[in-house]
Structures are given as structure tokens and as C-alpha cells.
């Protein structure tokens, strides 16, 4: 077990998820996530990593158990409360999920949508402060010069960095990354993971990353948890990832 440096930021208890088609994606998962750590989740495809991540920001509704985040019960949160929780959690996807026909800047501004209020939620108009925040986020991932380019004209690595900027624009306290480098080449993967860890270190944003490459997990993680067939089978430091753990998680 890792000795926690920070306080518990997010706590899952007895979390389970059964999809309508009968697949049991999560089975009684209990785990605490500490403020400021860089947590990597490993496991095979279909082990439940993605479902766990999506349960945190409510893209998937768990069928049992609870997730507590800053005193809020996420599993039952709805409406405004859920959206307020979501805007504090940036999310990065394997397929980047940028709105392809919009400019890079507009995509990053999507990260500010949760902070719009009143009539501004009805129109695509942003305050100057939001635009500045978005440009600043683009600056931090090094592609501010692409701000007015259409999102689908960028390369995969650049698109993923726009997605990181979008998450940063939310000024999150938690960053969720669902297989962020699975669609990228090794070179680009390293730059994207470097970006994520730098942001984690510099701004103290708790970061949870799903990965299936053990090498990356060893190199970047403060702590690693492993899923197998919906169950938590490993929780430890990255240097504990040995042959035995590999067998437990991947066999």
C-alpha cells in the first residue's frame, strides 16, 4: 500500500456496475484517491477501467455502491449538482472527442461551458475572461498558435493536446484520462503523458489515467491500481509492478 501524502479527495465504496446487456463491468470496487497523486489504472480491455473512470464524472451510472467527492455523493447527484461536480473534473478521451467542425479555441472554450450562467447558457458567447483562460490553457500545452485552426485539421497528438487544454480550461481539481495515448504513436504518447504529469506536478491536479502499457505506468505513476474482470486486484507503488502482478492483472 502507498502511504498517502495528501488527504482523500475521492472515495469509492462497494462500487458495482451491471450494464443492461448483462455485462458486469465493476464488481464491489472500493478505493481511495488522494489529492495531488498521479494514479494509473492498468488492466486488459474490458476489465472495467473505463467504466470506473466514467462512473466518477457520471457518464456511467453505477448500479450500486457510492463515490464521494468533496462531500458530494456522485452516484446519485443530478442536474446542477452533477454539472458543478463535472466542471471540476477534466476528462481526456482516447479518441480526443473534439468537436471537429469548430476551431481549436472554441473547443477549449467548451471547458468553460459549465461556468456559464444566466442567459449565456443559451448562446455560444463567452466572456473575455473565459477566452483568456482558454488561450492560456492552449499556451500551456504549446499550441496557442493553432487557436483559430479547425480542430480536425490537427494531427492526433495536437488534437489530444487541445483536449488537455479543454480540460485545463475547466480549472479542474481532478483530471480523468481514459486511454489518452492508445491512439497515438510512442513518441507523441510520451509528450502527452509528460504534459499530463507536468500539469499534475505544477498545479497539483489529481490525475487518474487509464493505461494498458505497463512501461508507461512504471514511469509516470505515483500509484498504480489494477483491474481484472471488474475487480480491483492490485493497489501499490509502480516499483511493485513485477512478474507476479503482471500475472495477476493480465492473466
Amino acid at each position, binding site marked *: 500500500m502507498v502511504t498517502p501524502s495528501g488527504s482523500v479527495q475521492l472515495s469509492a465504496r462497494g462500487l458495482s456496475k451491471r450494464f443492461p446487456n448483462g455485462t458486469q463491468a465493476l464488481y464491489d470496487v472500493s478505493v481511495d484517491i488522494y489529492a495531488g497523486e498521479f494514479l494509473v489504472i492498468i488492466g486488459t480491455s474490458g476489465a472495467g477501467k473505463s467504466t470506473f473512470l466514467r462512473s466518477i*464524472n457520471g*457518464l456511467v451510472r453505477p448500479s450500486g455502491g457510492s463515490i464521494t467527492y468533496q462531500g458530494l455523493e456522485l452516484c446519485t447527484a443530478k442536474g446542477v449538482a452533477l*454539472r*458543478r*461536480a*463535472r*466542471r*471540476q*473534473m*477534466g*476528462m481526456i*478521451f482516447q*479518441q480526443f*472527442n*473534439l*468537436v*471537429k*467542425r*469548430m476551431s481549436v479555441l472554441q473547443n477549449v472554450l*467548451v*471547458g468553460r*461551458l*459549465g*461556468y*456559464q450562467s444566466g442567459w449565456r*447558457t*443559451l*448562446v*455560444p458567447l463567452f466572456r473575455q475572461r473565459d477566452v483568456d483562460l482558454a488561450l492560456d490553457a492552449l499556451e500551456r500545452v504549446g499550441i496557442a498558435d493553432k487557436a483559430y485552426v479547425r480542430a480536425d485539421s490537427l494531427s492526433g497528438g495536437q488534437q489530444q493536446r487541445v*483536449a488537455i487544454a*479543454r*480540460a485545463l480550461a*475547466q480549472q479542474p481539481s481532478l483530471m*480523468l484520462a481514459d486511454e489518452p495515448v492508445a491512439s497515438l504513436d510512442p513518441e507523441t504518447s510520451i509528450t502527452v503523458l509528460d504534459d499530463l504529469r507536468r500539469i499534475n506536478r505544477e498545479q497539483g491536479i489529481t490525475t487518474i489515467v487509464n493505461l494498458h502499457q505497463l512501461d508507461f505506468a512504471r514511469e509516470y505513476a505515483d500509484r498504480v491500481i489494477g483491474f481484472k474482470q471488474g475487480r480491483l486486484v492490485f493497489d501499490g507503488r509502480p516499483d511493485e509492478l513485477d512478474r507476479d502482478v503482471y500475472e495477476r492483472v493480465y492473466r
Partner: protein
Amino acid sequence: MSESTDNLTERDGPAVGVAPVDTGKGDTIGGHAAVGAVLPARSWRGAAEPQVAPQGDRTGAPAPRPALPGAPVLLAQALAPGLGYALLRRPLRGAVTFALFALLTLVAYWQFPKDATNRGQAWIAFGAIMGVVWLNLLYRTANDLRVAAIITNERDLDAVALHRLLRSQQQGLLRWLFSLNLLVVALLVFGINRLAVDAEVDLLLFTKSSSLHAAKKLVIGLFHPKWSIWREIVQRYAWVSLEMAALGTVGGALLAAPFSFLAARNLMGRHPATRPVYYVMRFFFSCVRAIPTLIWGLIAISFVLGHFPGVIALSIFSFGLLTKLYSEAIEAIDWGQIEAVTAAGANPLQVILFAVVPQVVPYFISSTLYSLEVNVHSAVVLGLIGAGGLGLVINEYIGAFAWSAVSIVLIITIVMTLTIDYGSAYIRSKVV
């Protein structure tokens, strides 16, 4: 027939000589070989026929030629069409043949006149047709048997030589005609006849002198357009048709845009509370589309007169059409973008504004232009019921047999519709 068999022996002699002796042609000819395996090889024509292939020359010993039950198969086929195929272990083909034969008997029987005066003639025609179809079936069955026999007998031929041999059996126009499936041909002919009778087709119309005279005047008129009135037609009628079409499209699009979101499966079908909305909407819009623009026009024109009922009719129809096209565009969107915007804490309206709208706008534009094309066509027709525009004036000119004037209106209609069609197609190809 024996003549061609002789030809065959001569022509295929050299090919047989060149061919490699041992080939797996049983596999290459799949279907026929299966028939051959069922039937012990012997010519169905009986012992009187000359030997088709002199294998003895090549192998040195006479090839085994066991008896072929060709006669029972043919007899069965003759007594009960299709039964022969069943004996050849092709029960499906047998059943279909039997069913088609029964159907043809019924159809042919129904279609011959049964009044007392020419009852005899009708029976003769009926009998002749059924007889020819029956003979054709026997002929084709015999052909099948012969092909099977050849394949069994000519085991030494390679695939190409065998194919050439079989092809040479099917030459000649008469033979080709009679090897067609006359059962199917007859059913088609009777079917088309039925349609023609029901549609009151009268080919004799074109031979009447009065009709010919009228047709002549029509053709002459159409080829001499009355160019002097084109400006008036364009300004007073074509423009009105275009305006009606454009306004109808705008009306339909404005109505369809919000409703299409309610009729999109991926947005509404996910939650048990909203799923019924999706089904109700889909059914409702199917009903709207099922009623032609012209009927909407007639309904509308019973309330108001002038161009407005035309606009109403076009709006309602494009509303139905565009809701379908729009909601299909919405159903094709990338869900990942929706997830990403949702995950950023956006509310449902913002999700639609930022994740759905950017994805569907090009398809909405394209669909709307397509609707405009359809509406230009419909607007012309709507003139016929008094909604104004080209249809109205063309109706008047036709009523007066003023073919030269009709001609210029037709030309203007063609130019207008083609311009809209090609223009819209060009823009659509640029947008999507």
C-alpha cells in the same frame, strides 16, 4: 439434333486430345457434378443415339455406361411439373416449379374471356399456352439430364474443354429460345397484361385518325414555342412558383429543426421517459409524409384562396420530409463529442449547441436544399389546383389546346427546375 452432336464430336476432338487427362473437374463444376453423381451415366436419348464421346479411342477400353433413369424423371415431370426435379434430388426447385405452374394455370385461365361466343377459341389458346410451357419444361429437364450425362461420361475432360462441349450443345436461336424458362416468361407476360388491362391501356388509340390529327397538332405546337410570351410567363408565373417553393421550404425547415431532435433515436431512445416521445414523433411524421403535397394543397385551398395554401401545403410536406432527414443526420453523429461536452459540465441545451449542432449543420443545409428541389417540382403541380404559378397557366393553355404556349411554359419549367437541381446539387457537394 444428331447433326449437332456430330459437329460436336468433330469440333471437340482436338481439344480433348490436348487436354490433360487427370483433372478434378468434379469439383470445378460443382452443381452439375452433383446431379451427375445422383444419376448413373447414360444418354437419356436411349440406345439409338450415336455415341457422343468415343472414350474407347483414348483409354483403349470401352467406358462404363450404366443405365440412366431419364425416362422416369421425364415421365414424372410430365405428369406433375416439378416432380421430376424432386426425383433429381432438387426438391426446392421442384416445389417452385410446381407452384409457378399452378399459378400460371390459374392466371392464364382467369385472363381468357369466358363469354359464350368465343369460349372454344379461349380454351384452345389456353391449352396451347399451357402445352408450350409444358413441353418447354420437359425440354429443359431433358437438357439437364443430358448435361448431367455428359459430365458423368466425360470424366477425362478438363474444365475448359468440358465447358466448350456444353456450350456447343446450346447453340442455335431456336434451341436457345426453347431453353428459356417459358414458365417464368409466360407469368411475366400475363402479369404485365393484367397491369395493362387494369390501367386501361388502349394501344389502338394511336391508330385512330382523329387522335392522329390531334397528336400532330400537339407535336407541331410543342416544336413551335410561342417565344413572345416568355417574359410574362417568367415574371407572373415561374417567379410565383419559385417563391412558393422557397417560402414552403423555409417554413418546413423552421418547423422541422426543433422537432427533428425529438425524432432522433440516439437522443430520445436512451431514457425510458423519452423513448415514447421518439416513437410517437416517428409515427406522426410518417403519417405527415404519407399524404401527398397535392392533398395538403386541396385541404388548405378549401380554407383560403390564392398562393398561400400552396405555401402551407409545401411547408407541411417539407416539414415531414425534413424532420426525417434532419433526425437521420442527428442519429449519425459522433457520440464521443457529446460525452466530452457533457463531461465538461455543460447543461443539455449547451450539449446540443456545442456537440450536436456543429456536427449536423452541413447535413441540415444539404437536406434543406434537397427539399427545395422537391418543392420546386411540387409547386408547379400545386398550380393545377389553383394555388397559382406555372401549374395554373399550363392548365389553362392545355384546356385551350394552345400547344405553342404550353411549349414555352414547359421550357421555362425545365430550365427553372434544372437550374435549381444542379445549383443545389453543386452547393450540397461543397457543404458536406
